[in-house]
């Protein structure tokens, strides 16, 4: 029971500072889970992180997996809800306020002003991901191919992922 309360408090706090999304607070999650509470070792946390990246779904799944690791199904439920509810309530409140003042000049300017920063940050996270996944010329070619695929077509992104996986496997098999 104690551990569930600690999970709830930990992730409620993290939820409200997670500007930039779940991946932005991974270091903070690591600090609390490994250093403060000692719920898992460094290497278990690394596996948890890797898993949350490999599995389909939002990056926030890392929180669910930490909860599961710490306290089973109850831990998974508590950690996930604690991470999603506070920020979710805030997002809905802000979104409703913005919708109510949709036609005001201030709201329009705020939206127009935020979009470029968002696009720049998305491009930046793509670059960070490309660097992290760089293992050689083949990886760079796969990344470039996926860029072209996205820009030139409206097809399902899953095709690019499947293509990347197949090429990655073939290259390693024949070299």
């Amino acid at each position, binding site marked *: 029971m104690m551990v569930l309360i600690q999970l709830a408090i930990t992730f409620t706090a993290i939820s409200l500072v997670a500007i930039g999304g779940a991946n932005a607070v991974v270091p903070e999650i690591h600090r609390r889970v490994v250093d403060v509470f000692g719920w898992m070792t460094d290497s278990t946390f690394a596996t948890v992180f890797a898993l949350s990246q490999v599995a389909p779904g*939002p990056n926030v799944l890392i929180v669910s997996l930490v909860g599961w690791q710490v306290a089973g199904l109850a831990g998974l439920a508590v950690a996930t809800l604690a991470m999603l509810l506070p920020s979710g309530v805030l997002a809905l409140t802000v979104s409703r306020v913005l919708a109510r003042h949709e036609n005001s000049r201030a709201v329009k300017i705020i939206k127009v002003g935020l979009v470029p920063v968002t696009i720049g940050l998305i491009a930046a996270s793509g*670059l960070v991901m490309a660097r992290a996944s760089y293992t050689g010329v083949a990886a760079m070619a796969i990344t470039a191919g996926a860029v072209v695929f996205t820009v030139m077509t409206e097809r399902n992104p899953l095709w690019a992922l499947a293509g*990347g996986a197949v090429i990655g496997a073939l290259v390693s098999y024949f070299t």
Partner: protein
Amino acid sequence: MTPPDATAQARPSLGALFLGFAKIGLMGFGGVAPVARHVIVEDRRWLSEQEYAALLSVGQVLPGPNVVNTSLMIGDRFHGLLGAATALTGIMAMPLVLLIVFATLYGTVAENPIARAAMAGAAAASAGLVIGMAIKMARKLKPGVVALVFIGLAFVAAGVLRLPLVEAIIVLAPLSILAAWKFGK
């Protein structure tokens, strides 16, 4: 600003909302952002590029996972709180189940060199999808000079200089809004 995309459709039913977000959750390997944009803007046409960019931006400056925030807002916009809950369940439910399956299998898969190479290849592709998404959004939204400057600043701050996202957003978001106010029509 260009006028909203005329092809954006009327509001989806709760069932359609659930299925659309379930698709996003299930196909979101290596991050859901590219596939979320694909489903919402290109596949289901729930929102125009402009509307989606605006909602995603609000989701990004607020705390919490961006795409989850955006999903909640889209669900709420079409069907109120029930819609928000439906979108959230859609995007989270199947991935949570699969996550447990993955967690059980991971040990065996991670040992296999071919499987590792395939995962590395998919990771390289997902990086390309994210870069491509940014390029595509920028092309469709036709930013002016001021907007281009802020796209560049955000990219350099977070991508090249690797400043923490929170700092980049806290500094750049207000400046960009100020610039939009000063130089906007």
